[in-house]
């Protein structure tokens, strides 16, 4: 079914919208959740959360890209579950991004908090200029939370090549953000 029709079903509060979303985007979102949570059961619960979030947010939200919107919801729900498990000290439910140690200062600042939306917009602008594969590696790592090993498998690269490519991109991003006036 066409995305616009699915969104109309949401607006009509017709539960068929959830059925259509599940049919069209279920495997899609489940893959994102599984990639982050590494656990099918958790992913399944996350998927249900996604449907619920979509149901609650549409309307009033009318996403221009239903796939992207659902993907983002799924990712955020999965991260929330990771944070929840992390607080409960459940083993194995943490994400590690050691390579970001050199990228960020690790300090909060009031300005950071107020510029979050601008930061996302700036990173979006940066990402759109990246070569396709570089962009996919970057999003695979930091949006989809894939490990270097998983990325190496997906793109048929060595893990070291993945690490080098990501390192380069982070370096360029840092330069770009500093130039744009952000405090990293």
């Amino acid at each position: 079914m066409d995305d616009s029709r699915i969104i109309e079903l949401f607006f009509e509060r017709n539960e068929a919208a959830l059925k259509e979303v599940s049919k069209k985007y279920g495997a899609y979102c489940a893959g994102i959740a599984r990639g982050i949570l590494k656990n099918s059961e958790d992913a399944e619960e996350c998927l249900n959360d996604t449907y619920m979030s979509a149901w609650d947010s549409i309307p009033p939200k009318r996403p221009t890209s239903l796939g992207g919107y659902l993907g983002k919801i799924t990712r955020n729900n999965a991260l929330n579950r990771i944070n929840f498990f992390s607080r409960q000290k459940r083993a194995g439910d943490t994400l590690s991004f050691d390579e970001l140690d050199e990228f960020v200062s690790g300090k909060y600042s009031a300005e950071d908090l107020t510029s979050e939306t601008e930061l996302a917009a700036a990173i979006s602008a940066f990402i759109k200029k990246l070569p396709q594969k570089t962009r996919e590696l970057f999003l695979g790592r930091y949006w989809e939370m894939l490990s270097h090993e998983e990325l190496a498998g997906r793109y048929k690269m060595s893990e070291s090549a993945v690490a080098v490519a990501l390192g380069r991109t982070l370096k360029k991003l840092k330069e770009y953000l500093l130039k744009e006036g952000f405090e990293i």
Partner: protein
Amino acid sequence: MTKQQFIKAIGNLDDDIIEAYLGTPFDDGRAVKLRAEKSRSSFLKFVGIAAAVVCAAAAAIFAFTIFPLPNTPADVISESGDISDSGIPDISSASKDEKTPVEFTKEDEELQNILKELSPGEELRDRFIYGFLSGDDHSEQTFKFNCDPELDGIYVLTPSGRSQSGLMYPQTREELYKLLLKYFTFSAADSFMSEVETVVKSENPDGTFTIESTVYASLPTFFITADGIYRKKDENVSTVSGFVKFPWNAGKVVSKTDDTIIFTYLPYPTYPELDENGNPIYPELEDIDKYNECALKGVLKYERGGWRLNLTRAGFDFENDPPIMVKDEEFPDIMQGYMEQDSFNDKLRHIILTAASVEELERNVKALDTESRVNRILVTEYSDDPTYYKIGKPVTSGSIESGKTAYISVLYDDSSDGVVYWYGSWIDTIRGEFNNYESYGNKINMYIKIADTVDELKELIRLGDFNKRITAVRIYRKLGEGKREEITSGKLDTGMTVRVEFDVESYQEFSKTSSVTIT
């Protein structure tokens, strides 16, 4: 900024970025499923096969692979032709576009002839098209495509393109053929790639765009054991831990003697079909006969103390081309052909491994060398002297110890064999081949990686050439259009090609890339 803030910001990226990204056809089938929902039966449902040829100088290497192409139009074209859903026009109108035909090169003809038989809407599920390139050096290729998103017409994705940003719209059917060929070529290189760079070079006055993509290909590594032939997993899909049985349940040994093994195989499909659960379906061994036309032949031959691998497409004779040398530490008993049991080399290595001092090394080597085979013993130590700091400073006495000793090389025989101790790990040198891990090739790649300038690279290679095999080092910068110019000084940048000439009329080319790659 904290990591959490960064990750959160990434979660708020523009929707179109995320949608484009999620449109990528992953091997696990997620996006493929999504695309499959959009269309099922249009043109080129499953196109199979591509071929890869990675030619490296005197050692030409040929390897071919086969796979369905989920990113061909079938995967994204709406069945109804309605562009409101996918944004992609119906291909049925494409043939109406009649513009200047593309001029084909000779190497395009084979694929072109096959493609000409196709008609819009035809499914190619069981039809395999093969293409190949031959030539001096395809380890680095530049392809250009003209794209015009305003035109209705047949389209294909960019070679590495797996999202909507990669859509292309060839303007004539002939151009489609041309693009497909390039796509195959690129995809084939993709099978062995270490890096692909795709950039939009220009927006042309006629509204089209020129996209330039560069592939830096790397060699696959194969291993042979008592029960089969294996290929290292990280050079293909690594969803299976350890080593993937090669060729993925789709190959069989045809004949085997003490020094020659011939086998047939179906190359691994990069984007395999999926079963109802979204799991990839790989070719089975019995499919070889079914796919006989595109089955490949491999020859493993034991020569000069090592197993050499030659991969060919069935029916194509590369017999006269130098084969690939294969070797890996994880299959030491079989693949380290250089290490014959109780051989001179083996004993020599034992001496080097156990010698506590330069004096002891020389003494024990002399005792072993009853036939006067040894030409030179060289030991170096780490040094702050800029002349030596990357290679080590030669020493003639003193202890051999980790952290102090940089390099031990014992050369013997005319073939210039030896054993090298390099920054803490033991490495065999090679016999007449650069295409080998832990060898000249590896060293040169390392030098290319660490050298910042042309002069530094040449000096490093000269210092590392203990066997005095290298006759010239040339560095080239790309000019586009397949042309390049030699540079003799200045910065060594990514994308440059290093040509190393060695022995008699032999040469090999390397690329300056972000990772160490043996080409």
